[in-house]
């Protein structure tokens, strides 16, 4: 082997090695020695590489992937193996960062779709508030006795009602739009997160006449989570349910929360046609959609699955129920964590 190659390898900044066909290291970089820690597996993978041309395996601590490639020579006894180590913890981090980016992009996409509707959701009740104020002010200017206590009470109740509605919508947008990629888990109320998700699709709920039933929700029911991400999951499921029930005369969405052993179970049921058996195993695949072109990107449920995975929970379609039903499972909060983190809820 040329000394210049040996010299280059010994100066190489990454963990690489040149190995002969008997497993003897002919040359290696300094970092190879620091890292390489293989068991008996090494010899079998070396033989595999010599036989088939390449092989790869993990080190004892599952931090590095060793990739080996056979380098043939005219003289078979001089065949060598080029080996290098890949830090898979970095790769894993990069993959997770990419996934987090996709979750965030989906959220931005949802927000842009909802922006115009949300503007109306704020401006329309605001207009009714102004209508009430303008009417009372006009009447007062003419003659204060024209405004009866009964009318004033009715109007103030309406103003308060619409103001609360606007407040809820703005809260929903704020909770949902938060960039949570760097957030630590915090305790948040399941009920508040469901309310926030519902407030974001309120125009569709209202204008389709969909009846929403919430069962088993207790304001004290807190889960460790990244709230804006769970709102995103709930929003995806509710939006799909709304699309399914919109053409039905008396549409219904039923959201139930129950505690089953060590987990909270949320069941999102609707009286839509449900997921057909041939689509059931595809609905969580990225870019799968049964909606018409332009109506859905097909990434909502795959993003939801990733978020639930990050939360050590689960999301699945439950065919055993009478109504079409998506289930979200979350681990029950750790008591000590709950005490430590109280007050950080959404």
């Amino acid at each position, binding site marked *: 082997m040329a000394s210049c190659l040996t010299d280059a390898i010994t100066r190489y900044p990454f963990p690489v090695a040149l190995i002969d066909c008997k497993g003897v290291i002919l040359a290696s970089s300094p970092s190879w020695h620091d890292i390489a820690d293989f068991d008996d597996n090494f010899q079998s993978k070396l033989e595999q590489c010599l036989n088939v041309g390449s092989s790869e395996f993990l080190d004892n601590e599952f931090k590095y992937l060793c990739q080996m490639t056979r380098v043939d020579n005219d003289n078979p006894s001089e065949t060598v193996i080029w080996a290098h180590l890949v830090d898979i913890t970095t790769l894993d981090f990069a993959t997770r960062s990419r996934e987090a980016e996709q979750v965030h992009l989906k959220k931005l996409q949802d927000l842009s779709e909802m922006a115009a509707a949300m503007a109306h959701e704020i401006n329309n009740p605001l207009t009714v508030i*102004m*209508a009430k104020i303008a009417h009372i002010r006009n*009447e007062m200017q003419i003659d204060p006795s024209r405004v009866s206590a009964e009318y004033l009470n009715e109007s103030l109740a309406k103003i308060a009602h619409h103001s609360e*509605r606007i407040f809820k919508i703005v809260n929903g947008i704020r909770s949902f739009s938060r960039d949570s990629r760097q957030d630590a888990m915090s305790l948040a109320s399941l009920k508040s997160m469901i309310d926030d998700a519902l407030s974001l699709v309120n125009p569709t709920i*209202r204008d389709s*006449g969909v009846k929403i039933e919430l069962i088993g929700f207790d304001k004290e029911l807190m889960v460790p989570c990244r709230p804006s991400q769970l709102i995103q999951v709930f929003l995806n499921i509710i939006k799909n349910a709304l699309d399914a029930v*919109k053409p039905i005369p008396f549409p219904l969405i039923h959201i139930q929360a129950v505690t089953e052993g060590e987990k909270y179970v949320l069941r999102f049921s609707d009286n839509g046609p449900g997921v057909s058996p041939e689509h059931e195993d595809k609905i969580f695949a990225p870019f799968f959609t049964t909606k018409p072109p332009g109506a859905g990107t097909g990434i909502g449920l795959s993003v939801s699955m990733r978020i639930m995975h990050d939360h050590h929970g689960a999301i699945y379609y439950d065919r055993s129920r009478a109504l079409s039903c998506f289930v979200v499972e979350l681990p029950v909060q750790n008591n000590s964590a709950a005490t430590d983190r109280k007050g950080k809820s959404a």
Partner: protein
Amino acid sequence: MSPQSKSTRIGAIEPDYSAYDVVQERERLRNFLKENGLWIPEAFFQNIRTGDVIDLYSKPPQLSLLYCNSEFKRLCSYSKEQMEKMPFTQLFWRSDEIQQKVIHRMTEIALQSSEAAPWGIENHELVESLHPRKRTFEINLGWIAPCFDLATRERRAFVSSLKVALIFEWPDFKVA
């Protein structure tokens, strides 16, 4: 509604109904129905009030305008084309609670009932959602009835009567 009491007068200003002719309104509606092979229960005609807006929409969930009287055209700022092309719910906004009640009652009558009936929903505000000045009306709902195809007896639409008064619009600047 008057600031003094829950009278039948709606809106800030008493609307001028002097040009409104109930008999003529009934006749116009009958003619439209006859021309289009449609039929509605007689009780609806008997309960048309002076000043009522009368409109006929395709059955839910389409809700496209099929017919409206001149009172509607006088008050509404949307064009006939807009009203025909866009669903009612995109053009107008009501509060959640009222809208739920309206949709439930409308679905019930349009898809299940054979009779005309009072709406039975309290006075409320209706906003022209897409209007730059968000014109806002006070609505006093009257009666609602299903509309059938005369030949096939299939449900095709529903007809509604309501009193409408403009109560507010933003000053001349765009709000949404």
